C-alpha cells in the first residue's frame, strides 16, 4: 500500500480523537496529536510542558509580524507543528493526525484523506460528562469552550472554515451509529478507497 495520511478534525465530545486512534490501530500506522510536541521536544532536548499551553490556539493579545516572523507564541507553536506534519508527510510515512489544521497544511498532498467528525449535542454532552465526571451543565460549558477555541484556531490558520463539508473528504456524525461503529465504517470506506487507488 502506498503512502496515506488520514487527518481527523473533530468537535469536542464527538469521539473524533478515539476514532482517529482506532483508525491508526487498524491501519497499523502512528497517530500524531499533542504527542508530536513530545517527539519534537525529545529530539531537540527541550521540555514539551512549555509548549502544551500554547498549542491549538489562535494568536492571543497584541502581536506583530515582520517579514513572515510573528511575535505571537501561539503562531510559533502552530508553525512548529505544521512543519512537523509537513516533514512527516514528506518522509513518505503513512500516519493519522488529529486536528492541528492538518487537512489545510497537507491540502495539496495526494496522500491525504481528510475527515471531520461531528456529533449531536446531547450525545457529546453525555460523553464528556461520563469521561470527565462532570454534570451536564459543566460538560456543556466545557464543550462550548473547547469548540470555540478550536474553531478560532482552525479558521485563523486555514483556508476553509472549521467543519465546512467542502473542506473535507468525509464528514460524519458519530452520534448516529456510535463512536466505535463510526470508526469501523470509516475504516472500511478508507480501505476500499485505498484499494481502488492502488489499481
Amino acid at each position, binding site marked *: 500500500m502506498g503512502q496515506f495520511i488520514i487527518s481527523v478534525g473533530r468537535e469536542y465530545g464527538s469521539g473524533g480523537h478515539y476514532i482517529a486512534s482506532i483508525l491508526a490501530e487498524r491501519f497499523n500506522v502512528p497517530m500524531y496529536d499533542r504527542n508530536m510536541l513530545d517527539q519534537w521536544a525529545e529530539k531537540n*532536548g527541550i521540555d514539551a510542558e512549555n509548549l502544551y499551553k500554547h498549542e491549538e490556539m489562535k494568536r492571543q493579545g497584541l502581536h506583530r509580524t*515582520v*517579514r513572515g516572523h510573528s511575535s505571537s507564541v501561539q503562531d510559533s507553536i502552530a508553525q512548529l507543528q505544521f512543519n512537523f506534519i509537513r516533514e512527516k508527510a514528506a518522509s513518505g510515512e503513512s500516519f493519522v493526525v488529529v486536528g492541528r489544521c492538518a487537512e489545510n497544511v497537507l491540502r495539496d498532498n495526494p496522500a491525504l484523506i481528510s475527515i471531520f467528525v461531528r456529533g449531536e449535542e446531547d450525545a457529546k454532552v453525555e460523553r464528556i460528562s461520563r469521561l470527565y465526571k462532570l454534570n451536564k451543565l459543566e460538560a456543556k460549558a466545557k464543550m462550548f469552550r473547547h469548540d470555540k477555541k478550536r474553531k478560532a484556531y482552525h479558521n485563523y490558520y486555514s483556508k476553509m472554515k472549521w467543519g465546512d463539508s467542502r473542506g473535507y473528504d468525509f464528514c460524519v456524525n458519530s452520534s448516529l451509529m456510535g463512536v466505535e461503529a463510526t470508526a469501523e465504517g470509516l475504516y472500511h470506506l478508507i480501505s476500499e478507497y485505498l484499494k481502488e487507488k492502488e489499481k
Partner: protein
Amino acid sequence: MLAEIFAIVIFLAMFVLIVWDRFPKHYVTLGCAALTSIFVFGIGMRDAHAFVNTLAFKNIFKTSFWYSAGEAAEQTSGINWATIIFLWGMMVMVEGMAAAGFFDWLCLKIAKLANFEPRKIFVAFMVLSSVLAMFIDSITVILFLAAVTIRLARTLKFNPVPVIMAEIFCANLGGSATMCGDPPNIIIGTSLGYSFADFVMNTGALAAVSLVIIIIYFYFTMRNRLQNPADKVDPSTIDVDIKINDKKMFFWSVVIFAIAVGLLITHAMTGLTVAFIGVFVAIITLCAGRKRFKELITRVDYETLFFFIGLFVVVGGLEETGVLVTIANVIAKISGGNAHVMIAIILWVSAVASAFIDNIPFSATMIPVINALAQTTGVDLSTMAWTLAVGTDIGGSMTPIGASANVVGISTAGKEGYPISWATYCKELVPGTIIVIVVSMLNIYLRYL
C-alpha cells in the same frame, strides 16, 4: 479644516491598522497614502503642488541628492527617497553577506574564541549584536545570532532564552549608535542633514555608556539562569563545524562591508550622500555576486520599502496641512519652553510610544514636530534629534512588538521550541529599558543642557 481632519483620520486609521496586524503593513501604508492623495491633497487642499512636493520625485534628479558638499539637509518633507534607496542598497549588501555565510561564520568564530563557555558567549554575543547592528539592520543581526545561539544552546546544554533576549536588547541599543543602525536614525539623519559622524559622536556615545551598564545588569540578573551546573559540557568535546559556504563571495562580502563602513564614516568629508553609498554598495555586491544576481535582487525586502513610501505620503499629508506644527505648539505649551521638560517629554513619549507602535512612523511624524519646536522655542534641534533617536530606538526594546528585532528573535526562538511570552519578555527587558532611558536622559541633561 477639512484637509486637517482627513489627514488626522487617515493617519490614526493607519496606526490602528498597523497595530492590528491583520493586513500586510505595506498595503496599509500604500492604501492610506492613496487616501491621503485623494482626500487631503485633492478634496481637502485642492493643491497639486503639495502633492507633487510630497512625492518628492524631482529631488532624485538633483546633484545634491547624490553628492552634497557641506552638511545641508538632504530633504525636509515628503517621501524620503534617500532613506529608501540607502536601505535598498544595504539590503542587497546584507543578502550578499548572508549568502556567503558571513554571519554564521562570525558568530561561531566568536563562540569558539569564548571557548564555548555559556557565560562568555552570553557577554560576547551581546557585544557582537550591538556592533553588528551599528551597520546592519537589526532584523538580519538577530535572525542569524538567534539561530546560532539555539544551535549552540543545544550542543552546550544552556538556556538560549536569556541570551536571545539580551541580544535583542543590544541590537536595538547598537542600532541607536549610528545613522544607519536603525531606520528612524536614517530618516532623522537624511531629513535634518546630520552625518554618520554626528550620530557616532552623539547617539553613539550615549549608546556606549548604556551598553556597558546593560551588559553588567543582564550579566548579574541572568547568569544563574543560563545553565544548570550539572549540564555543563566539556568545551574540548565540542565539535561545531565553522565553514564558509562560498569562499570567493565571502571575501568580497567582507571587502564590500568594509567599503560601506568606510564610505559611511567619511561621507560628511567626501560629500557622498547615503543614497549614493546605498546604490554604490548594491552595484558592487551585484557585480561580485553576479552568479546570484537574481537571488540577491529578489530577496530584498521590498515590502518594507513600499511601507516606507506609503508612510512618508501619509506623514506628508499631516505636515502639509500644518497638523504637526499644532502638535509642536502643544508640546511647547506643556513644557512652558523649559528645555529639560521638553527633552523629557520627547524621550519618554518616544520610548513608550515605540514600545507599542512601529518606531518608524512615529519618528517620521516627530521630525517635523521637533523642527517646529526648535524654531518656536529656541531649543537646539540636534539635542532634540538625538533624544528622539534614543527614545524611539531603545523604547522599542520594552515589549515583544516594539521593534522588528524583538519579533524576529521571539519568532526564531518559538519555532525552535523556546516560547517567549509577553510576561517572560517584559519581566526581563522592561527594567533594562527603563535603566537605559534614565541613564540616557541624565547623559543628555549633563552633556547638552
